[in-house]
């Protein structure tokens, strides 16, 4: 029983990373009806941004010498690294959209899709050139220790941080989309771009905003993942990117709650398969899920055919 609970916890923390990446996919899809395949690589850039920013942040906010203990200054430092990386990636996302996708917006959707794959390959290889292809050890920005008092269960501080941050970001995102002017404009654009622009909405601004927000979430996922698995390399975004895409489809692409549900389900499913069936099927399961969902419920778990998409 303990083993099963432990596996569930493992799955939850893995799933929340997928969920964060899936949120970015789903947002862009909601607004532009297009899958930004470079999203996984923005996630990688996020992790590298954290890697290079952490030493600078530490100059301003010194981290405690003892990395095994909790301290306010190390948490503040980690938070600063997270926010700065999110900002870096937001800018990157907006730039990618401006330079690459915007000139193609009037072209067939397939053109943009293939261009997205091109951007993805570019980021991977430019990353190898810029950062070096060898894996880097991500600095310990949060104490690396287990939460005490759980008996035989092991929950790392980092694992719980991932889950909490994911939930906070989901709530924040929900607020932005449902309660702010920007969010209303995003929903209007998703519903009918032509009508939205007739109503005085500047579509370019909204699309830039969406890309910035989505990319910031990818950066958050990159940092949180690197805290948990402190080895980062320029190709680290490929597989999580694809899996998060599956998670977004599983939950119903275009649906924010669906993306989180899909990510967490996929993480738990994967972990249980590794723990109880065979690690060989770890990656296969994600794609089996994709095929099954496309066959039996093409709109995803929470997606409705005529749902309001974001």
């Amino acid at each position, binding site marked *: 029983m303990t083993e099963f609970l432990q596996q569930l916890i493992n799955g939850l923390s893995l799933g929340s990373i997928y969920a964060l990446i899936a949120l970015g996919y789903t947002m862009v899809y909601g607004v532009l009806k297009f899958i930004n395949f470079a999203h996984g690589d923005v996630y990688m850039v996020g992790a590298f941004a954290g890697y290079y920013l952490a030493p600078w942040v530490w100059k301003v906010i010194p981290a405690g010498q003892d990395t095994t203990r909790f301290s306010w200054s190390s948490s503040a430092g980690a938070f600063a690294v997270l926010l700065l990386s999110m900002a870096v990636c937001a800018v990157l996302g907006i730039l990618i959209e401006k330079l690459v996708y915007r000139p193609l917006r009037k072209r067939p959707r397939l053109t943009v899709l293939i261009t997205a794959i091109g951007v993805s390959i570019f980021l991977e290889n430019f990353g190898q050139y810029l950062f070096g292809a*060898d894996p880097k050890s991500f600095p310990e920005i949060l104490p690396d220790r287990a939460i005490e008092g759980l008996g035989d269960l092991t929950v790392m501080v980092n694992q719980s941080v991932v889950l909490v941050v994911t939930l906070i970001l989901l709530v924040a995102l929900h607020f932005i989309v449902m309660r702010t002017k920007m969010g209303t404009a995003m929903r209007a654009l998703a519903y009918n771009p032509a009508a939205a622009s007739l109503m005085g909405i500047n579509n370019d601004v909204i699309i830039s905003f969406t890309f910035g927000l989505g990319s910031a979430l990818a950066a958050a996922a990159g940092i949180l993942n690197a805290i948990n698995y402190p080895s980062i390399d320029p190709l680290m975004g490929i597989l999580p990117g694809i899996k998060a895409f599956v998670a977004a489809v599983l939950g119903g692409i275009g649906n924010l709650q669906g993306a989180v549900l899909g990510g967490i389900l996929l993480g738990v499913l*994967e972990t249980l398969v590794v723990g109880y069936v*065979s*690690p060989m099927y770890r990656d296969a399961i994600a794609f089996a899920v994709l095929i099954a969902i496309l066959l039996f419920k093409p709109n995803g778990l929470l997606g409705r055919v005529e749902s309001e998409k974001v």
Partner: protein
Amino acid sequence: MKRISFLVVTALFALGVAAIAQDEIKVGLYASLTGGQASYGISQNNAIQLGLEEINQAGGVLGKPLKIIVEDDRSTPGESATIVRKLIANDKVCAILGEFASSRSLEGGPICQENKIPMISPGSTNPKVTEIGDYIFRTCFMDSFQGTVMGRFALAKGYKKAAILTDEKQAYSKGLAHYFREYFTKNGGEIVKEQSYSSGDKDFRAQLTSLKAAKPDMVFVPGYYNEVALISRQARQFGLKVPFMGGDGWEGDSLLKVAGNSLDGCYFSSHFSADNQSPVVQGFIAKYKAKFGIVPDCQAALGYDTVKILADAINRAGSTNPAALRDAIAATKDFQGVTGKISLDANRNASKPAVVQTVGEGRYKFVENVEP
């Protein structure tokens, strides 16, 4: 008229011969310079370039400079075959050096064999590599030896219950696990749990949770450094504190950087220890350090020996004719390298001692030497 054309042809022929005579002798190298096992390719290439410099300063081979054409296979499956084909067809190399990873040697090897171009792997320890054919050699020991060494070492340490965590995607890892299991269970040990992962994975918590439940005395992890570092880190977080053991795949640039102190007191088998005080080894270490600023690892040592063995064989063959070169490499006997005395047997494998190393204070430490 006929006479003139004859003269022209002769002159051209003579010019051509002269051009070839001034030419260099080309050898190909394919290695993982980037990607998941970049540390191997970089060390190997560094050491080969160092060896190459020395060879050319001493007059090259057959009176001509030796040239090495380096290609990167990005640690990815599928690249090696293409690169080896390119080296043979376009660059017309007379021999090929490379790869460390057995899986990639198994990709490139058959192409060398098909084209009858000798290939020497400096570090592929999986037995299947040299079984490809009579043009494929290796200058390291095999997993059958390495696995036995670690099995014996584990039993000597008093461990009776072992768990194994293998990299499903690597022939090296599966082979090493097989030989460890065989020796360990035949000699009174018991394998309490087996789990696996795939190269490139970052999350091993599911596997480690199930390994921990089996309560082993030790865990054998015959993987490559990248994953091993993350595995040991996550294992310690889970309170799986038993020692880990593994093979030469552990030795990589980022192993200790990522693992921190989570591998302290763990053991792995290797080809070379920088603690070896013999003048040959210390001389190599000094030269390597002067050029690259770091202490060479086992991949560097093997790469250095391999290029020296090849140069020696080309000189003994007296030509770059592949068949003659093949015979000369096969006849390598008692070659004094930095990884020990190297002789190639009838199956084109080197029989050499292994060293067991341990980790502590942020570096590798020599534990013992195991003769074949």
